[in-house]
């Protein structure tokens, strides 16, 4: 039964850390750090994701074949964002449609 007790403790600690990170993410959002705010917000969310996946979802003790699928999912998300943003970040900003501004575009 010692195994059971260990897991309960592990889950409790994970849960506590997740709640602390929630507090941190709310607190940091009130500081004015410019674009760095978004970076920190997503960074904390990614940390929480990693904790949930590792401990609650047992990715830590998963077999390699399963981990390949986990990382393939992350990799595909990476493709979605890098290729997508490589388009939008290298364009002029999107003009608002005429009906929004009420003025014809120059």
């Amino acid at each position, binding site marked *: *039964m010692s*195994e*059971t007790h260990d*897991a*309960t403790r592990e*889950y*409790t600690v*994970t*849960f506590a850390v*997740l*709640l602390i990170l*929630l507090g941190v*993410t*709310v607190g940091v*959002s*009130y*500081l*004015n*750090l410019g674009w760095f*705010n978004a970076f920190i*917000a*997503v960074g*904390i*969310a990614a940390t*929480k*994701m990693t904790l*949930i*996946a590792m*401990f*609650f*979802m*047992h990715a830590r003790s*998963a*077999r390699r*074949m*399963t981990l390949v*699928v*986990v990382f*393939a*999912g*992350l990799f*595909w*998300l990476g493709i*979605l*964002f890098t290729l*997508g*943003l490589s388009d*939008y*970040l290298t364009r002029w*900003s*999107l003009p*608002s449609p005429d009906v*929004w501004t009420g003025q014809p575009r120059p």
Partner: protein
Amino acid sequence: MRRIVEEQFEDVHQQRDAATMGMWLFIATEALFFGGLLFAYAVYRGAYYRAFSEASEEMSIVLGGVNTAVLLCSSFSMAMAVQSAKSSRGGRLVFFLALTAVIGAVFLAIKFTEYYEHYQHHLVPGTHFQFSGPHAKQVELFMVFYFVLTGMHAVHMIVGLGMLITLVILARRGRFLGEDYNTVEFGGLYWHFVDIVWVFLFPLLYLVDRSGQ
């Protein structure tokens, strides 16, 4: 006695490995589904940053923050349910599964309270929408993202609730104990994934720019 191992598998471990991989594959496709929405959100947030930050201030940080904590609680309870199933404690398993479902229902109740407030404040996109300021249309776009993202998340929560209720009924009949815990484990994987989605939605929708400059 119900057979635990299906006939195409050598033993219960092989069955568990195969099913675990399949479940993660499903989660990967779900991540891409939400990823597409979040990517579109990112592009428009970059284009209309001021409006998105104004719109985000309309969100209740208290309700959103409490809801995040509520969902983390439900994930913790779900992890405990899996643990109970693994260690063959039927009573605890039923308790934690039911607790997870109740906490999930609390989340949805708070979420729909927020929806009602948005409706009262004329923030639901469409003819009813009203927002004073130069960025009204862009704020409306933010609200479209808000309702699609949180709405799809809520749909996943409702599916999860149905799953949990089914698990509670079966667990009460003495299922899922010991080596038979797979189903609870995979239900847990789904529930934790839905939690992870919210972990990203909360800062992106509620905390765009709270520093008020």
